[in-house]
C-alpha cells in the first residue's frame, strides 16, 4: 500500500535528503518569521516617531494618574481634617460643659479656699448669711456652700417663724448648727475681703456678737447642686445672620 503510494509519487531514496532539507528549511523559515513578527511588535523595532507618540501617550497617562492621585490625597486630607476638627469640637464642647457646670453649680468642685464656722449660740440672721455669701462672691469665691448646700443663683436663703422664734432656712430646709460656710477661691483674698476693718466680720462681731471663725484650707470640697429642669423656659433661637 505504502510502496504503491510512494511509487505513484515517484519516490526514491535519493530524494530523501532533499525532502529533509526542504522540511528543515520550511521549519526554520516559519520560526524566523514568527520571531521577526514578535520582534517587530517590540519597542526596539519601533520608529522614532512611533516611540515619541508612545512616550507622549504614556506621559499623558502618567500626568492624568498623578492628578487623580493628588485630588484623592486632597480628599483624604480634607476628610481627615474634618474628623480631627469633629473630635476637637467634641473636646471643646465637653470642656465648655465642664466649665459651665462648675459655674452653675451642677458639678462637684474642689480646691483651696476658706471655711467659716459660726457656732450655735449666736444671733445670726438670714441676711447675715446672704451678706456673707455675697461678700465671698464679690471677693472672688468661685463656689460657696452653707452646710454642704451649694449656693447657686437659685438658692433661697430665708427665715421662718416657728415655735416662737425665727429659724433660718436654705432651700426650704432648716439650717442646723453649727453653720459651716465653705468657699473656694484665693484663701488670702477671701479672708481679707471678710476681715478688713469695718467689714462684714467686724460688723457681725461688734453689732451682733456673732463670731465667725475663719480658717484657710488647702483643700475644700463642695458638692454639686441639684440641676434645675426647665419646663416652660426655652432658649430663644438666635437669628442666623446669613
Amino acid at each position, binding site marked *: 500500500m505504502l510502496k504503491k503510494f510512494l511509487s505513484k*509519487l*515517484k*519516490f526514491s531514496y*535519493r*530524494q*530523501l*535528503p*532533499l*525532502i*529533509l*532539507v*526542504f*522540511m*528543515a*528549511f*520550511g*521549519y*526554520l*523559515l*516559519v*520560526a*524566523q518569521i*514568527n*520571531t*521577526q513578527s*514578535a*520582534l517587530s511588535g*517590540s519597542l*526596539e523595532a519601533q520608529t522614532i516617531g512611533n516611540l515619541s507618540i508612545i512616550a507622549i501617550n504614556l506621559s499623558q497617562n502618567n500626568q492624568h494618574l498623578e492628578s487623580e492621585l493628588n485630588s484623592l490625597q486632597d480628599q483624604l486630607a480634607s476628610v481627615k481634617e474634618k474628623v480631627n476638627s469633629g473630635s476637637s469640637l467634641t473636646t471643646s464642647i465637653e470642656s465648655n460643659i465642664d466649665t459651665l457646670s462648675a459655674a452653675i453649680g451642677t458639678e462637684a468642685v474642689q480646691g483651696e479656699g476658706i471655711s467659716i464656722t459660726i457656732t450655735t449660740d449666736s444671733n445670726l440672721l438670714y441676711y447675715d448669711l446672704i451678706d456673707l455669701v455675697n461678700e465671698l462672691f464679690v471677693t472672688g469665691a468661685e463656689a460657696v456652700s452653707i452646710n454642704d448646700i451649694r449656693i447657686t443663683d437659685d438658692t433661697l436663703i430665708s427665715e421662718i417663724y416657728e415655735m416662737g422664734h425665727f429659724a433660718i432656712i436654705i432651700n426650704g430646709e432648716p439650717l442646723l448648727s453649727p453653720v459651716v460656710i465653705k468657699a473656694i477661691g484665693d484663701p488670702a483674698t477671701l479672708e481679707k475681703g471678710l476681715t478688713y476693718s469695718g467689714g462684714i466680720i467686724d460688723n457681725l462681731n461688734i453689732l451682733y456678737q456673732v463670731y465667725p471663725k475663719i480658717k484657710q484650707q488647702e483643700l475644700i470640697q463642695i458638692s454639686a447642686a441639684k440641676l434645675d429642669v426647665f419646663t416652660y423656659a426655652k432658649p430663644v433661637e438666635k437669628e442666623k445672620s446669613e
Partner: protein
Amino acid sequence: MWLPILGLFIGILLGIGFAFPLPAIYAEYLSIAVLAGLDSILGGWRAGLEGKFKSNVLLSGFFVNAAMAALLAYLGDLLGLDLYLAAVIVFGLRIFNNISSIRRGLLERYNIRKHHKNQQPSSDSQITEEQISTKTQK
C-alpha cells in the same frame, strides 16, 4: 519534484504547529541560518541543473552552512565585529549567483527542448534529466 515541495509544506506546518519561543538575541542568528539554508537549496538546484547534484553535499551543506553562519554571527557579537553583515553579503551574493545560474540553466533547457521538438516532432518528447544535464554541460 513534488516531494521536496511537500517536505517544505510539512516543515512549514511543523513550524506553525510547534513554534518554539526564540529569545530576541538569537533572532539574528536564526535569520542568517535561514539565509545559509536558502543558499544551500539554490546551490543544490543549480547543481541539479548542471548535472552535478549530490544529495550528501546538499544535506551536509545545508546544515553545516546554516550552523556555521549562525556561529560566525555569534562570534562576531563576541568580538564586537559585524561578521553578521559579512555573512549576509556573502550569502546574498551566492544566492544571486545561484539564481542567475538557475535562470540560465532553465532557459537553456527550455531552448534545447524546443529545438528537439522542432527536429523530431514524431519522436517521444520525454527527455530524461540526465540527457538534459549532459546537453547542458556540452
